[in-house]
């Protein structure tokens, strides 16, 4: 029986059958006979999460543009369907042609968050592909990965055959070309790995050896053989107007997390918040032009029929012609009732004006992310928001009719004291006071404070810093709870500290963690970011059995000359710049936006000319 037929019997037994059905409008079906390379694009989470992610969609349509390439999608089956698959011996299959994944040429994973790693192992197992790279043979697909977490590839070094570092649009096509010729030549798997390692931006971990110091830190990662590059430089797209961007996006049936058309307006961010990995690894800033965006937007709506289009970037307000762009788009779409949504907007007078105009004011929810409670700590992390800015924006918002405010903070930032935590609470109460001043009462007001725990990330100025301990996380959350409990209009939610701890371990971990992952997976860990499935106890045991100490990874302050697992990569950011930023943070000195002054972060060496023409370096 074909998988297709089997599904008709099996799917009525699962909670959301549309996750596994495929056949969405604009999904692509090709005759496999005419295809030279068959690629499965995988997102290690459920359909509705994976389908909300832009990167995988760009690659899907880009690859399918070529006649002889066929890219299909696959997501992690939810636990109910997994049980059935195991019982019925149904191998993991692709959404489009329902082909077993083990039959593909490539299986490519998007790495968006560390806590999806166990799902990768689980998907490999469900696909019948050996979980460990060296156990695979010529009959297995190449298992590859890319995305932000690939900026520290080492925890997955045992699992992935290779990684793509940086923006994949150009490099995937180079890989496909190489593979076509490799297939024609009929050579061995190992040979392909050696050849693909020659493509800039590709990292083949099995071609490198790792040595450690007595204290457990890295001594070095180096190529096993001559001719393999010492350092892998990230790939970037030079011209955002020229680069491929899809317009016929797949339109899901079910309600997914971000159910709207997505228009990427620029890449990169100039603000330089010191905790933020995205702000560093996606440099330099490159915008699409208003003209190109207008064309794309029209085509996307025409071919998807979405009723909402969302502008995507790290910081929407920083698009240089935002006003013009939003005016053009609202004019364009007024007639056909397409709304515009502007996420990641810095809330200020201008953006409120904008928000009022473009979004039939959804009066629920305005989000502010001051990240830290006091000015001192905001200076430490280089988040350029002041209390005055915030309160005056909040005031404007209240006057305009908003009554729900979300405030995002991080706890455990370097140098944080209880004074700073108190600052979080003070800010929340100050917001309540502003509402009272505007309306004379606090009826209807909701202030939702939420905190996550700071996770030090590679390629940020805080990559040398420890995370606070689990005990300390609980203490600080408890303290905040006690402060915020008294506010009638205030609610407080927090991110599970155990997850933040695991994130901290894997985001800066080394190759040895592969063993932990394997054991955790064998014990049944999966969907760790889903609180109803997550089991911290299993992880604790996994570390014990692997003989690795979690504290070593999460709580250790690194010395300035320590070799990091991700040093093998060149993200275009100079370590000297990161150290400078670390020093400045200790003195609570802010570093202005790159548009005001260039701080010589090193990215100019990657893309000549720099992105802003200022020469006054510090």
């Amino acid at each position, binding site marked *: 029986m074909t998988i297709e037929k089997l599904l008709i019997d099996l799917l*009525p037994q699962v909670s959301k*059958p549309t996750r596994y059905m495929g056949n969405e*409008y604009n999904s692509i079906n090709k005759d496999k006979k005419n295809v030279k390379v068959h690629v499965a694009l995988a997102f290690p989470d459920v359909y509705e999460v994976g389908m909300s992610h832009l990167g995988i969609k760009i690659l899907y349509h880009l690859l399918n543009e070529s006649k002889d390439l066929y890219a299909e999608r696959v997501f992690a089956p939810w636990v109910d369907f997994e049980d059935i698959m195991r019982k019925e011996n149904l191998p993991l299959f692709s959404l489009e042609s329902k082909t077993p994944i083990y039959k593909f040429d490539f299986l490519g994973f998007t790495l968006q968050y560390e806590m999806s790693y166990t799902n990768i192992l689980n998907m490999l197992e469900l696909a019948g592909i050996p979980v460990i790279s060296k156990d695979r043979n010529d009959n297995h697909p190449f298992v590859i990965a890319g995305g932000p977490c690939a900026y520290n590839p080492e925890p997955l070094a045992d699992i992935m055959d290779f990684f793509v570092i940086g923006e994949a649009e150009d490099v995937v096509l180079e890989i496909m070309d190489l593979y076509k010729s490799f297939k024609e030549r009929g050579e061995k798997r190992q040979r392909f790995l050696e050849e693909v390692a020659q493509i800039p931006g590709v990292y083949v971990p099995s071609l490198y050896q790792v040595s450690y110091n007595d204290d457990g830190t890295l001594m070095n990662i180096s190529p096993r053989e001559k001719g393999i590059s010492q350092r892998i430089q990230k790939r970037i797209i030079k011209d955002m107007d020229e680069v491929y961007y899809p317009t016929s996006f797949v*339109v899901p049936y*079910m309600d997914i997390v971000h159910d709207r058309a997505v228009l990427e307006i620029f890449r990169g961010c100039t603000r330089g918040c010191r905790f933020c990995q995205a702000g560093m690894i996606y440099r330099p800033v490159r915008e699409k032009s208003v003209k190109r965006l207008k064309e794309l937007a029209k085509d996307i709506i025409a071919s998807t*029929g979405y009723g909402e289009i969302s502008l995507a970037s790290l910081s929407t307000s920083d698009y240089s012609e935002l006003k013009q762009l939003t005016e053009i788009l609202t004019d364009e779409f007024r007639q056909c*009732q*397409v709304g515009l949504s502007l996420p990641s907007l810095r809330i200020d007078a201008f953006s409120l004006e904008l928000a009022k105009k473009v979004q*039939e004011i959804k009066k629920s929810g305005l989000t502010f992310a001051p990240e830290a409670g006091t000015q001192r700590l905001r200076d430490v992390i280089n988040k350029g928001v002041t209390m005055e800015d915030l309160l005056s924006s909040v005031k404007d918002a209240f006057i305009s009719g908003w009554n729900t405010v979300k405030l995002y903070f991080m706890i455990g930032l370097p140098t944080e004291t209880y004074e700073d935590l108190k600052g979080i609470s003070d800010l929340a109460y100050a917001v309540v006071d502003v509402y009272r001043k505007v309306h004379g009462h606090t009826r209807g007001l909701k202030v939702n404070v939420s905190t996550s725990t700071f996770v030090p990330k590679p390629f940020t100025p805080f990559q040398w810093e420890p995370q606070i301990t689990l005990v300390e996380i609980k203490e600080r959350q408890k303290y905040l709870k006690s402060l915020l409990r008294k506010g009638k209009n205030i609610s407080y939610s927090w991110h599970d500290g155990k997850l933040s701890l695991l994130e901290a371990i894997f985001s800066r971990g080394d190759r040895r963690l592969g063993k932990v992952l394997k054991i955790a997976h064998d014990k049944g860990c999966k969907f760790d970011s889903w609180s109803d499935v997550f089991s911290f106890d299993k992880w604790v045991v996994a570390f014990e059995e692997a003989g690795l100490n979690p504290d070593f990874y999460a709580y250790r302050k690194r010395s300035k000359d320590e070799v990091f697992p991700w040093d093998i990569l060149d993200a275009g950011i100079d370590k000297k710049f990161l150290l400078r930023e670390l020093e400045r943070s200790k003195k609570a000195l802010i570093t202005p936006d790159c548009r005001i002054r260039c701080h010589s972060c090193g990215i100019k060496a990657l893309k000549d000319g720099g992105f802003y023409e200022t020469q006054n370096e510090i």
Partner: protein
Amino acid sequence: MKLRMKFEKGRPVMFISHLDMMRTFGRALRRADLPVAFTQGFNPRPKITFTPALSVGIVSSSEYMDVELYEEVSVKEVTVRLNRVLPDGLRIIKAGIVDGNTPLSMLNGAMYMVELDLDTLNLQELKNSIKMLSCREEIIVEKTTKSGTKLVNIAPLIYKIDFLDNDSSVRLVMSLSIGQQGSVSPRLVILELEKILAKKIKVLSIQREELFFKSDDNKIILPLNLAEYTSPPDPKSPL
């Protein structure tokens, strides 16, 4: 102008929910670039109405929707343009102008074709069980609603069950109540038959074949009697 369209929901989309389907049509109408009228106010919605929800997992050759347009477009053009941009498994079969037709919300009956697996059944026993079920005045079942479970008598909701057989298959044609006065799904009827037979019945497929309005004097009115345009069968989406 208001249009009524009859459409099929085939295998490729058999697992999408009613809500999914409504969203899908909303987007297809925009792709077709049709002048769909929207509701006023904060959250404008396209003016589309559908027939009562079909249970997930059941295919249908007879669903209906009404769409209001703010400009005149010929029925044929609407149908052709919409069919061009519908996903596999959804297809407009025919369409006409709504003009004093029964409102879709008033439909109270549905006819289902239920195909059963021959191997596991004794035909005579099955026939008897249908007769027994049809004679009963009271068939009490538990129904879970938002407010909890309650007991419902489904006997008056089962209009008629016919039996069709040939060498290769056994099919039941069920006319069942839908809509506000109460509805019963063909699966529930099968469950009751299983109780009488004291064994499992294997269902091969269920298809909704027609929706209708049954008046108090047992007259049957179809939602779309006189279609202005009937679309040619699309080989791309077999049911």
